[in-house]
C-alpha cells in the first residue's frame, strides 16, 4: 500500500529554496519593509488623519501661544521685542519631531496586530532568521515616520516658518535618524507584547512623557534639577535639538539665539549635532538588539 509516485515530480523547484541563509534573511527584511511602506501609502486616510494631531499642536497651540506671548510684549527665548524669534518658529521642529515620534511608535503597534491576526506567524515560520522581523519592522516604521515628518515640512510656510532648500536637505537625514531610533524603540517594546492592550498601556505610559521632556514645546535650559536630568535621558531631546538647529538656521534666526533656545547641554557642554546623531543611532541599534532578542524568544 505504499503510494508510488514518480520520483522526479516533487523535486522540481525544491532545490532552489534558500535555507535560512543571509540572503534569505535580507529578502525577508526587504519584504517586511516593503509591506509596511506599501500599506502606509495605500492607507491615505490614516496618513492624513495622523497629521491632525501635529497640526493641531502647530496651528492652535503654536500660533495661539505665539500671539499671546507677543501680546504680552515679549518675544520668545529672551529676544525681547526684536521679533527675531517667535514661538511658532521655535515649536515647529518640535511638532515635526512629534509627528515622527507618534508615527514611529504606532507603526510598531502593527507588530502586535500581526501577532494577533496571524501574519507574523507566516514570517516566523519561514526559513529566515527572526532578526529579519525586528530589522524589517524598524526600517519600515522609520521610513513611514520619516515620510510623515517630511509631510509636516510642507506646512512650514503656512505658519510663517521659512525653510531653505539647504535646511530641507539637512532635515531629511536627521528625520530618518530620529525615526529609526524611535521606531526601534517601538519594535523593542512590541516584540515583548502579546496583546494590543498591553502595548497601548505601555505606550500611553511612555509616549507623552517622552514628548513633553524632549524640548519640543519649551527650551531645555533653566529647568528644575530633576526635570533637567529627565530631559537629558530622553532620546527625542537629541533629535529635536538638531532639527531645531536646522530650521532656525534656515529661517535666519541669529545663531546665538538659536543656540540659547535650542541646544542641549550635557555636563555643562553643548552637545554638537554630529554627536547627537551618533547618540540617536546608538540608541536605535541598542533598541534593535533588544527587539531581536524579543523575537528570538519562542512563543
Amino acid at each position, binding site marked *: 500500500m505504499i503510494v508510488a509516485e514518480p520520483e522526479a*515530480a516533487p523535486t522540481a523547484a525544491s532545490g532552489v*529554496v534558500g535555507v535560512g541563509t543571509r540572503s534569505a534573511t535580507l*529578502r525577508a527584511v526587504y519584504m517586511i519593509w516593503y509591506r509596511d511602506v506599501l500599506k502606509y501609502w495605500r492607507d491615505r486616510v490614516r496618513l492624513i488623519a495622523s497629521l491632525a494631531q501635529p497640526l493641531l499642536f502647530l496651528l492652535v497651540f503654536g500660533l495661539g501661544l505665539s500671539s499671546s506671548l507677543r501680546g504680552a510684549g515679549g518675544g520668545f527665548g529672551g529676544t525681547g521685542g526684536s521679533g527675531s524669534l517667535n514661538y511658532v518658529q521655535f515649536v515647529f521642529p518640535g511638532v515635526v519631531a512629534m509627528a515622527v515620534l507618534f508615527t514611529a511608535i504606532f507603526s510598531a503597534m502593527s507588530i502586535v496586530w500581526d501577532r494577533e491576526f496571524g501574519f507574523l506567524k507566516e514570517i516566523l515560520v519561514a526559513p529566515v532568521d527572526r532578526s529579519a522581523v525586528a530589522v524589517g519592522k524598524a526600517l519600515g516604521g522609520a521610513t513611514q515616520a520619516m515620510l510623515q515628518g517630511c509631510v509636516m515640512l510642507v506646512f512650514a510656510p503656512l505658519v510663517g516658518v521659512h525653510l531653505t532648500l539647504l535646511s530641507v536637505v539637512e532635515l531629511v537625514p536627521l528625520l530618518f535618524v530620529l525615526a529609526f531610533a524611535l521606531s526601534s524603540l517601538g519594535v523593542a517594546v512590541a516584540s515583548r507584547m502579546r496583546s494590543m492592550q498591553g502595548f497601548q498601556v505601555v505606550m500611553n505610559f511612555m509616549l507623552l512623557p517622552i514628548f513633553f521632556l524632549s524640548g519640543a514645546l519649551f527650551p531645555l535650559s533653566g529647568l528644575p534639577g530633576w526635570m533637567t536630568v529627565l530631559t537629558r535621558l530622553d532620546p527625542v531631546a537629541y533629535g529635536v535639538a538638531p532639527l531645531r538647529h536646522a530650521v532656525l538656521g534656515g529661517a535666519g534666526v541669529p545663531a546665538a539665539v538659536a543656540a540659547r533656545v535650542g541646544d542641549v547641554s550635557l555636563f555643562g557642554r553643548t552637545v554638537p549635532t554630529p554627536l547627537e546623531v551618533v547618540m540617536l543611532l546608538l540608541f536605535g541599534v541598542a533598541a534593535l538588539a533588544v527587539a531581536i532578542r524579543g523575537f528570538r524568544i519562542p512563543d
Partner: protein
Amino acid sequence: MTLSASVPGERGSMTGPAPEPATSVIGVRGLVKRYGPVEAVRGIDLDVHRGEVFGFLGPNGAGKSTTISILCTLLRASSGTAHVAGFDVQRDPAAVRARIGLVFQDPSLDDQLTARENLEFHALIYNVPRAVRRQRINEVLEMVGLGDRASSLVRTFSGGMKRRLEIARGILHDPRILFLDEPTQGLDPQTRSRIWEHLQELRRRLGVTIFMTTHYMDEAEYCDRIAIIDHGRIVAQGTSDQLKQMVGGDVVSVITADDVRAMAEIERALDVSPVLQDGSLRMEVADGAAFVPRLIGAVSAPVRSVTVRRPSLDDVFLKLTGRAIRDEDADPLQAMRAMGARWAGRRR
C-alpha cells in the same frame, strides 16, 4: 496500551528505532513533549510515506497541534526524534522549513493586501526565483480556484476562500510536504468538501505529501492512512479500512421501550455486550443481517427501531478509547456560535 491496527502482511506500526524506509518523508520515534508536569505528547512513533495523504485524528487537546508544531520546527520536543523531508527537525530546522508548506489552524494572511500580494511576499521570503514567480503564483491561484480574484483584497474573501488562498500559499514554494492543522475547522460542509477536492487535486498534480490534523472523523475518509491520537498517544494507525476492521463486522443500534432490561437480556441470550449511548443500545457483531432476528427474539420490550451499518471511524474511536470523539469535541468558538445561533433563533 498502544493498539496496533496493522494487518499481517501489510505495512504496520513501527516499534523501536528502525531505519527509515526509503519512501518515508516523515519519521517520528518516541516523541515526547512536556509542558511542566503535563505530558501533551507521550511517546509517538509515526511514518508518513511519500505522496500520501496522512490524517492525524483525535479530539481537541489530544496532542495533534503539539505534534504538528514539533514537525514544523515551531516547538522543540522534550525527547525523541523526528525527521521531516530527510532532515532532523531539532538539528536542522531551517532545512526542514524550506521544504515544507504550512497551513495553520488560525488565519495568517494579511487581509489588507491582495491575494497576489500575499503570495508575492511569500515567494520573496521562500526565494521562488523571480523569473518563475509570476507564473507560479498564477498557477497556484488557478489550482485553488482563485484565478479571477488575484487582485482583490483578502479582506473581501469568505472564510473558505481565505483558507484556499492559504493552501495556495502553502504550496507556492513547491514543498515536499504540506502540513495542514485543522484546515477545515469552522467551515461549512460544502466548503469543506470543496477544500478536500483541491487538496486531492494538488496531491495528484504535484505529488506533494499531505499531513493534516482534523477532529472531523468523516474527513479521515479522504486520507490514505490515518493515525488516531488520544491523550498524547497513538492508539491506532492504518488505512481507514484497516481501522474499521478493528471494530469487526457491523454496528447494530437498537431502541427499545426499556433499554436497561433489553441490555441485560441481550447480554444473557446473545453473548454480546451492548453499550447504552445517546438513547440507543449499540453493539458490534460479525454479521448484522443475521443478528437482527435473533436480537428481536431476545428482547421482551417492544423494539422501536433497529439500525445496521458498517462501522465508521467514530466507532473505531469509541472502541479504542471508550468514548465518542464528539464527547470531547468542545471547540469553544463553535460552542459559542451554536449558542449564539440558538439565542438568535429564540428571539425570532
